[in-house]
């Protein structure tokens, strides 16, 4: 793998992370991160969707008429999201129930369309695949970090296993209810963005809406 391709894969994981740097995909990052398990599944689902849509769009990029470019991209992404949702319903029904609408809403996740537009529509399929993988991993990493803090401090568990015994269960830990609410995730995400920028791990000159 050339260094260029390696950068395509690794850059979006921390330095150009889609969530903390470009502030994309925040809605689902707030919604599914009260538990680590749901955050991980969501991360995998989004990574799969981004990889597949990037490859598909890269393959047809030469023939794609400009006037219907966005429509075609969204059609492909929506189809892939339906496939992911159906697979989850068939093979992980309990998880699919917990994630409820948020799997379907991957279609509106700016990361997927953003990568299709910004990268896959002008790069080869292999590079696009790596770009999808890297951005998906960056998203999953943020979700995992936020979910870990929320689950451990909010319910005293990690992946369902008790870490801190709560008062209700006879222990001494008083869970922080605020963290289980979406607003708690918002604060955590803000702290994470601030922390990464303060540590100069992420550029602070780049921002997207």
């Amino acid at each position, binding site marked *: 793998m050339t260094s260029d391709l390696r950068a395509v894969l690794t850059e979006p994981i921390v330095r150009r992370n889609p969530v903390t740097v470009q502030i994309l995909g925040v809605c689902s990052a707030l919604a599914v991160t009260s538990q680590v398990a749901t955050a991980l599944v969501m991360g995998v689902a989004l990574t799969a969707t981004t990889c597949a849509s990037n490859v598909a769009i890269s393959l*047809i990029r030469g*023939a*794609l*008429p*400009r*006037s*219907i470019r966005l*429509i*075609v991209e969204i*059609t*492909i992404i*929506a*189809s892939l999201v*339906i*496939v992911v949702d*159906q*697979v989850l*319903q*068939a*093979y992980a*029904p309990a998880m699919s129930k917990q994630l409820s609408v948020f799997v379907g809403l991957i279609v509106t996740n700016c990361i997927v369309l953003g990568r299709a537009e910004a990268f896959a529509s002008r790069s080869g399929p292999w590079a696009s695949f790596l770009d999808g993988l890297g951005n998906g991993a960056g998203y999953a990493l943020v979700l995992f970090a936020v979910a870990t803090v929320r689950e451990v401090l909010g319910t005293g568990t990690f992946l369902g296993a008790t870490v801190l015994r709560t008062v209700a269960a006879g222990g001494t830990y008083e869970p922080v209810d605020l963290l289980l609410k979406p607003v708690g995730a918002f604060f955590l995400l803000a702290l994470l963005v601030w922390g990464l920028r303060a540590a100069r791990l992420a550029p602070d000159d780049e921002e997207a809406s």
Partner: protein
Amino acid sequence: MGDRRPPPVPVRPSWFARLRALPPDDPKRTLLFALAVAVVCATVVSTTAVALRPRQRANREAERRVQLRDIVARLPGVEALFARTGASEVETLAIDLATGAPAPSVEAATFDPRKAAADPTAGVAIPGDLDVAGLERRARHAVVYVVKDGGRVEVVVLPVEGSGYGGLIRGFVAMRGDGNTILALSFFEHLETAGVGARIDDPAWRARWQGKQARDPEGRLRVGVATARLDPADAPYQVDGISGATITSEAVGNLLRYWLGDHGFGPFLRTLR
């Protein structure tokens, strides 16, 4: 043979090559491209949906069974019954409410009573004077759960619902095989006020229903909630309401009166006797 070869035909480029030669934003090419994307995407989506459907259906069925098992297992006496008979399965039965007869045309696993109630053909309007539960419409059919001991029906679990103080109250009432004796009542969905109407979930209050009769020996429907003082003559049929939660208590009494009555499960319960 000599020179009888036909003159060379000019090679016409294939339709595909001609299409490719068009500029990318040519309307014809755009239209065809859109069509191709639509066809491919539709094929992918529908193939996935069809291929995974059996698995998804099995998952849904398993989930419903778990929920029902949960509700049934908490009924007093049911655990003992399961232990005694060795039966652990609850039979699902779709019935026609008007006749009480089984309705094999209804697929029990996917039956949605609320959707059916709203449907102009699968649902019926409840006449105003009979609509004590405040439902306005109900489905023509219902899915009930039957626990059998040998061939004999021991317990039937009926889904019931009615308007409460805060919204729809939904639950199950378990009846003995005689179709008249209440074994248990539980609610899986309601919007009653916490600490007031929500006390219908209180096990102590629900336990009072155990052993109550729906009808007296003359066949009159007597079941209900007494919101004033409970008349000793009504004691075999009624329970005291929850103080401070008159509307919710009455709603529970009314939904039982509706669903155990002639417009509800009455015809089905008669078939059990």
